[in-house]
């Protein structure tokens, strides 16, 4: 239930078994099924979710009803609306389940208490946020300056698992292109091979 979590945390910091037990006392184990929501627009994001197993996505819906995918999360990743989680303001995102999942949920008050009791967790989080910030900057530059094909190629190289596991129309939504464009790009790439 906690295997992936401690593997990931211990890649960055080394927890003692006592510290691992403290972590366990704050993490809420939650199984969710495909298509269930763990956050809906308008609700407050009370938990940050670590994915032990399965796949999820966060997305917004625009005025015309189009979905825009912000993030995917598979084993070893965290997913939440950090703004809503920290401020307690209603979220503008939805987070739903793409593949049956096992999550570990951490509420904001629990996180604060955990950081007090296990200071190493603060370092783990800092490293995590640094990595996420860099990834976000790269994604922004990519989306501002690169062609659709470059964006797709970059994604397949960086996260081949996600390409395998997520439906094509969601990949298109994540890249900000139409499903038709994505399918044309995929055809062109495979023709060249």
């Amino acid at each position, binding site marked *: 239930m906690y295997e992936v979590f401690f593997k990931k945390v211990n890649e960055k910091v080394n927890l003692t078994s006592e510290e691992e037990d403290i972590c366990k*006392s*704050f*993490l809420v*184990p*939650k*199984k969710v099924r495909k298509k269930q929501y763990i956050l*809906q627009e308008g609700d407050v994001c009370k938990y940050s979710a670590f994915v032990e197993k399965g796949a999820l996505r966060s997305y917004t819906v625009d005025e015309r009803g189009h979905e825009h995918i912000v993030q995917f999360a598979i084993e070893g990743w965290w997913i939440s609306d950090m703004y809503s989680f920290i401020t307690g303001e209603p979220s503008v995102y939805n987070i739903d389940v793409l593949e049956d999942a096992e999550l570990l949920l951490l*509420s904001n008050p629990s996180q604060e208490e955990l950081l007090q009791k296990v200071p190493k967790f603060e370092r783990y989080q800092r490293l995590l946020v640094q990595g996420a910030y860099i990834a976000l900057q790269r994604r922004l530059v990519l989306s501002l300056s690169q062609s659709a094909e470059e964006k797709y190629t970059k994604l397949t190289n960086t996260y081949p698992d996600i390409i395998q596991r997520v439906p094509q129309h969601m990949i298109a939504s994540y890249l900000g292109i139409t499903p038709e464009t994505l399918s044309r790009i995929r055809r062109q790439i495979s023709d060249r091979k």
Partner: protein
Amino acid sequence: MPATKTIAIIGATGSMGSAIAKSLSGSSNRVLLFARDIEKLTSLLEEIKEVHPNGDVEIIGCPTDACWEADIIIPAVPFGAENEVAEKIRTVATGKIVISISNPLNDAYNGLVTTPDTSAAEELQKLLPYSKVIKAFNTSFAASFTNPVIDGKIANVFIAGNDEESLETVSELVKISGFNPIIAGGLPVSRTLENMQLLLISLGRKYNYNGLAGWKILHN
């Protein structure tokens, strides 16, 4: 988390378990049922589906799995069986609301087996130290779930617990089931609530209430 909660009822075929299952299944919540007697459980599900064809209700074959999926856990088993249930669900109940509905009655139903300095709810909290144990529904007879209006008044359900947010969540469930919730205080108030039901049971026997009795605070 979305407003829809997943509720696991462990021991769903008992009189209280099935009464609670039926009364919560008509809501927007998702209800997961577990009991050892799969035949009884299947007929309970059929019964619920007849009344609430669109209700999100499901049988889960293992109490641990049911509670792993749940946000709220209701062990609807006698006090004596709570230890065994707690063993099975402890690892997946961290951070979740666990509703203590039981009364620690002795075999003759004329006294409590707990000492005066504790209660069934507090004992359950000791067994599940990382869960949010909330006392509720222990002063309601199973029969009153069919119609919580007794003598023209909506019966009260008293709620006790130490976590504010969980008390509010359970109040909402009480409203859904048709009763009138009253937050009575911290978890130790369960001692009084469990004694109240002991009194109601003994009065019921003496005056033949047939389970059609409940508590109501009268006030102006």
